[in-house]
């Protein structure tokens, strides 16, 4: 690769970030064009993560100053209330799409989420886990209220080494199986779960399949896991 090309690409990316896609699209060489586009996407992603980190602080400042206007969206309202009741349990103040919580007070918050009359999240729609990289696992909860017909998403990130989150199985009964599935697939331990076993995989399965570093077993009970298809030589 020539340094000229690299220079050209960085130039193009800068232009692209300002919204000017013409120069990139007008490149004739296909390889160069795709490279430039890939670099642009990378740069955009990086910029976005910075953006998301920054404006949060501003928002939280605004919110603490004014006293919950009626027009705030549900997530901001919940965050405000959580801050009042369970201070220090918010992991960050991002409320755009979800609420990020710390794991320690989760059980109390969950109990409150269901019992608080103005929220009344009586239905746990979906519970799932995700390996977000950086040695972090995240449990995500999608709540819905049948009474108020509103909806929110809560995320709890835990380090991979001590992946333990309080179980909400006794609050929403469906969390029993959802948490078992998350445990089965990602190895997040739910403390306080009364029956935390694997649910879909056999009990003696090794590893957590949906973690990104999962390696397929070589053999299972003496059965060799085929790497190549038979007859494909």
């Amino acid at each position, binding site marked *: 690769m020539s340094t000229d090309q690299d220079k050209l690409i960085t130039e193009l990316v800068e232009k692209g970030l300002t919204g000017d896609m013409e120069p990139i699209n007008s490149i004739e060489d296909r390889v160069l064009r795709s490279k430039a586009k890939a670099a642009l*996407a990378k740069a955009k*992603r990086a910029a*976005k993560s910075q953006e998301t980190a920054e404006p949060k602080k501003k928002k939280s400042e605004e919110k603490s100053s004014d006293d919950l206007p009626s027009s705030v969206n549900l997530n901001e309202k919940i965050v405000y209330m959580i801050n009042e009741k369970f201070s220090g349990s918010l992991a960050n103040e991002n409320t755009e*799409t979800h609420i990020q919580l710390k794991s320690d007070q989760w059980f109390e918050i969950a109990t409150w989420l269901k019992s608080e009359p103005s929220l009344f999240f*009586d*239905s*746990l*729609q*979906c519970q*799932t886990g*995700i*390996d977000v990289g950086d040695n972090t696992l995240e449990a*995500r909860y*999608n709540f819905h209220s*049948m009474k108020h*017909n509103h909806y929110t*998403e809560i995320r709890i990130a835990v380090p991979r080494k001590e992946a333990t989150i309080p179980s909400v199985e006794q609050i*929403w*009964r*469906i969390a*029993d*199986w*959802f948490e078992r599935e998350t445990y089965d*697939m990602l190895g997040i331990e739910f403390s306080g779960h009364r029956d935390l076993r*694997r*649910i*879909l*995989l*056999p009990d003696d399965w090794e590893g957590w*399949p*949906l973690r990104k570093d999962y390696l397929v077993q070589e053999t299972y009970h003496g059965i060799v896991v085929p790497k190549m298809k038979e007859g494909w030589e």
Partner: protein
Amino acid sequence: MGVVHGEEMVLNIGPQHPATHGVLRLQVRTDGEVVSEVTPYLGYLHRCFEKHCENVTYEQVIPFTDRCDYLASMTNNFGYVVAMEGLMDIKVNERVEHIRVIMAELQRIASHLLGLGAFGLDIGAFTPFLHMLRDRERILDLFEMTCGARLLYNYMWVGGLSHDLPVGFVESTYRFLDYFEPKIDEFVKLLVHNKIFVERTADVGRLPQDVAISYGVSGPNLRASGQKWDLRKDDPYSIYDRFEFDIPVGEGGKGSVGDCWDRFYVRVLEMKESIKILRQALSSLPKEGDVYQSLPKKIRPPIGSIYKRTESPRGDLGYYIESDGTNIPYRLKMRSPAFTALSVIDEIAAGWLLSDVLAILGSLDIVLGEIDR
């Protein structure tokens, strides 16, 4: 004289058993005929759907969604494409929306037909089952006419459809609806009001409303418990807000609200509502419109996540999609309605007789492909 207690026996219903609708194992603790505990063991049909999805592109996920709930492939496709279009902010044209609704409602009827028939079979009525299958075949014919496949369609694509409607589809569908409507009444007369059937199902396996919500039970099972909750009305997606239809709710017609009979009858009524929607959608189907119009060149959704729910024949079908900006999903979770419906079995089946456990299992209308994924 008190209740006589005998020796307890552990009985395995399944994985191969005529009434488990797939490969499910229910470990049942029984005292004579009375069942004290039901423990489901899942995973016999686990095909690593979610792991697969992390290794194939977004468009290649669709054939796998077909195979999750193999009795309602269209609605599974539908849920996925609605979620993906939400993530990518794609708007599809009117014709596509109409065709999707038509397909989804036909699929709902087909799925309910099999569910009801199989429930009848669990109770011991063989004839209604075959009558249901006979009518279901007609719907499958319509699907085959449209996309060539009878069971696993891969019909709805992100931003469009794989094929336009064939010539004569609308007429054939009208013909089917005219044929099918009287058949529902015949079925109701033959089985639903049959006294033996009522005795077997009324008051059996009552699922109270709050328990149902806590267990995440959704769809017809939740509606049978008295909760008026249908995503087509309460959180409308696609163009469902344009159609007029009712949400049938369990009223305890033969016993109490939320019993097996209600779960059964709600499905019967839902088929009638689907026919209503179908007639409206067919009459307002736009003649013009390219089904490939808004098909994206490359499916690369922006970074972010979405949780989108749609109403599948079995309940709230949710897709949780996390995208990292590439053409491969970073994480895809399917919240299957049958999974949540099965989790409630111990709660409502304990204390009933062995025959009732199987009736309750049948009334929940589960599909193991969707539970195990």
